[in-house]
């Protein structure tokens, strides 16, 4: 129970926000998949080059990033007021707003709104993936059809998306052809693996679904508080179909997706497409405000989702992860993501942004696989440079590592650090310790130690260690040879 004046830390979110294995375990298996690595390498290289060209074309790119970042900071600072205005505007225009504290509540609300429909069409939405909506609907006997080509591929394969933007990046054309022949009802048996023909097969299959569907479920890229307008940014036209054709539309939107003013779109409609697909503008963007008689759905429901976002907001450093506009630029520039792919991160949100978002949305206590995510980075900083809203992901990762160690320091490491502190605190003890380390030369071959004995084996499990020198600096400093060298240098002076 919350009382005035005693703020409580909000609860974490639930749903598809963690895997079953830690990142190193999951990555180990993925790294062995050479097909996946080839596909990912090609895809991330291509998108990286396109993004750089598209961002480089604008002389005011950095000014746009600064504005985008500040607008998102402003949104979080004024979130309660903005959400209430937003609700009021949507309601005035004939929409109905629902509030979902967590994944279970969102699933329950949406299922309740379907009004007996047995089939729904869906347009790509990470939020519905996060709450596990499709699985929930299936358990209620309702079929949800994904309509984005990549999502359709993933759904037909009974798979999970591996990339925010191109969820089927891990499948090649031959695999997709086989999948369509096996799982797509009414497909032409002579279908070849030309991407144009595969896309045409999907068009034919989905067109019937769009024309027949009573209800569509969508996500949202932006919600405008000032006007109650919602926006979906897409390429294929499946979004337009879902937002226009069915009689009823249900939109699930995270509470952080707000923008204060309609005019703020002038910033985000430049940042998002260029960062995401590397295009000047994506083929289609739809904006709608409530219900428009005679044009599109007659009934509109908006479900606002918390699910750990308020918990993330309670951390003054970590909250900037809520600025994310899901462009996926950080995934494509990340040397770790490029090799492991998205599945290794376990959560709906992969890559660098997922590594800071998932532990904050869902928690990372104890043996939670999410506790491994803040370490799934070399802290190279490429993600920060690429982020259109300037989320300092490397600093967030370091902060989360700090929080994790504070709550659950690894015991072996803590003991070693304690011993090191004792040795370093006294010069004699330090000299003895250094001499003892000199014994490490016995383990070395060609100047390198490749395996330390237990309990230090973990350190050399992933790296080689240079052999300690014959003489420590202190030993050298105390020698007659050092005194002679220093005297000569002193005579020469600083020159």
């Amino acid at each position, binding site marked *: 129970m919350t009382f005035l004046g005693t703020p409580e830390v909000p609860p974490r979110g639930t749903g598809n926000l963690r895997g079953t294995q830690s990142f190193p375990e999951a990555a180990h298996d993925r790294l062995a998949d050479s097909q996946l690595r080839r596909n990912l390498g090609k895809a991330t290289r291509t998108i990286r080059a396109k993004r750089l060209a598209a961002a480089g074309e604008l002389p005011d790119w950095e000014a746009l990033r600064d504005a985008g970042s500040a607008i998102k900071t402003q949104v979080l600072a004024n979130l309660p007021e903005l959400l209430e205005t937003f609700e009021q505007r949507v309601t005035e225009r004939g929409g109905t707003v629902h509030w979902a504290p967590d994944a279970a509540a969102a699933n329950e609300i949406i299922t309740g709104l379907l009004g007996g429909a047995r089939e729904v069409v869906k347009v790509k939405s990470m939020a519905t993936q996060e709450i596990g909506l499709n699985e929930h609907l299936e358990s209620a006997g309702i079929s949800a059809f994904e309509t984005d080509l990549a999502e359709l591929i993933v759904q037909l394969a009974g798979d999970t998306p591996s990339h925010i933007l191109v969820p089927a990046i891990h499948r090649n054309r031959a695999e997709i052809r086989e999948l369509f022949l096996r799982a797509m009802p009414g497909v032409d048996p002579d279908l070849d693996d030309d991407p144009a023909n595969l896309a045409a097969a999907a*068009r034919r299959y989905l067109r019937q679904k769009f024309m027949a569907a009573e209800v569509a479920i969508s996500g949202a890229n932006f919600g405008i508080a000032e006007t109650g307008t919602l926006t979906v940014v897409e390429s294929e036209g499946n979004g337009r179909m879902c937002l226009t054709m069915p009689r009823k539309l249900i939109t699930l939107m995270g509470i952080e997706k707000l923008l204060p003013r309609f005019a703020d779109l002038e910033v985000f409609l430049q940042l998002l497409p260029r960062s995401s697909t590397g295009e000047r503008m994506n083929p289609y963007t739809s904006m709608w405000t409530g219900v428009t008689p005679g044009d599109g759905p007659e009934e509109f429901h908006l479900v606002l989702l918390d699910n750990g976002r308020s918990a993330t907001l309670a951390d003054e450093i970590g909250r900037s992860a809520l600025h994310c506009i899901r462009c996926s630029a950080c995934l494509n520039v990340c040397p770790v993501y490029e090799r492991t792919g998205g599945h290794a991160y376990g959560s709906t949100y992969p890559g660098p942004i997922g590594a800071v978002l998932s532990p904050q949305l869902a928690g990372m206590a104890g043996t939670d696989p999410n506790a491994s995510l803040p370490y799934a980075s070399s802290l190279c900083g490429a993600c920060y440079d690429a982020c259109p809203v300037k989320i300092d992901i490397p600093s967030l990762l370091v902060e989360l590592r700090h929080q994790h160690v504070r709550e659950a320091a690894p015991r072996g490491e803590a003991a070693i650090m304690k011993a090191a502190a004792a040795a370093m605190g006294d010069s004699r003890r330090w000299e003895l310790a250094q001499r003892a380390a000199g014994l490490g030369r016995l383990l070395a071959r060609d100047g390198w130690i490749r395996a330390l004995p237990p309990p230090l084996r973990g350190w050399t499990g992933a790296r080689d260690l240079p052999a300690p020198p014959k003489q420590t600096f202190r030993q050298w400093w105390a020698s007659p040879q050092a005194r002679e060298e220093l005297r000569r240098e002193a005579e020469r002076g600083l020159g």
Partner: protein
Amino acid sequence: MTGKTGTTGKATVLGRIRDALAIAPPAPVTVPRAYRTGTELPSPQRIALLAERLRDYRASVHECRATDTAATIARILGPARRIGCPAGLPRDWLAETGAEIRVDGPETSVAALDALDAVVTGSAVSCAETGTIFLDAGPDQGRRALTLVPDKHLCVVDASSVVAGVPEAIARLEPARPITLISGPSATSDIELERVEGVHGPRTLVVVLRTDR
């Protein structure tokens, strides 16, 4: 909707957000807006840039004088037999086509839209820098389904409605209307990142740019 704590979902969510902001109070922010706004380009350059950017996204672009609009549309649509249009489209634009004209209305069925060879509409505003056409469901553009279901969309853009950049285009919109931004025909790169045009929207986008030079 009643939550676990006996409060409504709304009270729960807003209460949590207020708690979070009380735990870590945010500093005041000012949004720096140093990016370009109000960019103006001389008309010929603006039109040329729009045409180039539209072609870059594989739309076909035809420039014509305003007085040649009907002839240009007739030439492009050539053999089309059934052409759809919104009720507010200037009817003289279609005077030379010789096709059967079907004026869209709220009662027009989806199947009827699907059976059209092409749809002809006007447009609200266009952004040269990104090659984007904005439709706002005005009388010469019609409801959204009309420009979505048919396989070919011929869109007439008047030079006076072309602006330089995104901020100038956004400023001209009326937010309460249903708005569709179109940058080339629908496309996907979902299979091995190979671009395929024409997934669910019209597979062909033809732009008639009316210039009076």
